[in-house]
């Protein structure tokens, strides 16, 4: 379904922008349904902005902050975890008979359709869902040469954040267990499951480094890294006004309105987090730190 959107994507997440659009009576009456085949020529039918950069992440690590800082630039369109791209990526496993070339064409078409300029923007950034780093090679095949970031954070902080308010990526079954090498469904109920999922994102980023054009950004370097290393990496012009806009965006707490503390925090939370981080995440975290803010050519 296609809604008309005249205003920029300013909310922290695509879903919020879509919801705003669908509250307008025009879209309630005239939102248009098409088949996926409509994406076949979407990339060539109307002017679109070629992607300038992709953002991957391990979850709860500052990637939304980066997206919001980029969205503060008048020259940029930022798509933050767009559900339509998630749906297409899921088709890779959900419809295994679908030719890869068709899926690539639809993926390009969807990025093109969502990323059209509305106010003369010239740059397009996509922040993907955390699990999409598992499919980084597919995304890189769709858009060869587009630089990408992987954002990461000290794993105990990530696990504590997830324990307070678990993201959908940590719900058992939201990600095909085959990505995690899980054969036995009973493992989905394991207390380690969430840490294994997050570790799989880090492992995938390290593994897919070979794709090239990647940069690893440590949460500890935010927000400063966005106006320095990241801007340089994404070839952003860095006027004083743009830098100021990004700093102002960084001051807004993008997720404050979205998160609520869990009513029943686990009693043994600290020990559990420590055990899971040490077992699953310390090694990839150390490897990521060794690569941090180093562009991979």
């Amino acid at each position, binding site marked *: 379904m296609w809604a008309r959107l005249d205003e920029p994507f300013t909310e922290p997440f695509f879903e919020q922008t879509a919801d705003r659009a669908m509250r307008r*009576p025009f879209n309630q009456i005239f939102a248009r349904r098409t088949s996926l085949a409509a994406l076949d020529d979407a990339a060539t039918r109307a002017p679109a902005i070629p992607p300038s950069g992709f953002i991957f992440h391990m979850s709860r690590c500052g990637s939304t902050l980066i997206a919001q800082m980029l969205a503060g630039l008048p020259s940029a369109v930022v798509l933050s975890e767009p559900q339509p791209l998630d749906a297409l990526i899921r088709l890779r496993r959900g419809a295994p008979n679908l030719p890869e070339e068709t899926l690539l064409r639809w993926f390009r078409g969807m990025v093109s359709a969502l990323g059209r300029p509305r106010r003369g923007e010239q740059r397009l950034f996509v922040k993907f869902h955390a699990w999409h780093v598992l499919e980084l090679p597919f995304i890189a095949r769709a858009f060869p040469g587009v630089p990408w970031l992987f954002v990461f954070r000290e794993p105990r902080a990530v696990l504590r954040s997830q324990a307070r308010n678990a993201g959908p990526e940590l719900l058992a079954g939201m990600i095909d267990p085959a990505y995690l090498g899980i054969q036995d469904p009973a493992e989905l109920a394991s207390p380690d499951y969430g840490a294994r999922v997050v570790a799989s994102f880090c492992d995938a980023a390290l593994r897919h480094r070979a794709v090239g054009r990647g940069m690893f950004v440590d949460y500890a370097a935010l927000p400063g890294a966005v106006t320095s290393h990241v801007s340089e990496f994404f070839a952003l012009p860095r006027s004083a006004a743009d830098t100021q806009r990004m700093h102002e965006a960084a001051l807004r707490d993008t997720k404050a309105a979205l998160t609520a503390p869990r009513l029943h925090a686990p009693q043994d939370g600290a020990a559990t987090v420590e055990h899971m981080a040490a077992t699953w995440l310390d090694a990839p975290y150390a490897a990521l730190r060794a690569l941090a803010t180093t562009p991979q050519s």
Partner: protein
Amino acid sequence: MSREGLEALRACVYADPELARGLNGLADARFGAEVVRAAAELRCDVTDDDVRTAIAQAREAWMLRWIL
């Protein structure tokens, strides 16, 4: 409700970017009346009630999209 009238109007709106832009720019309070007026000009049979019902149905479908 005239489903055919609304479908005919939708086809006109999809084919005419200027018309779409004009209707999209309307304030919510004027939207229903202007849609009916535009429909009449285009000889599509659409009433106030059709518009209200379509909006209510769309709103409900959007709210329930994750659970149905």
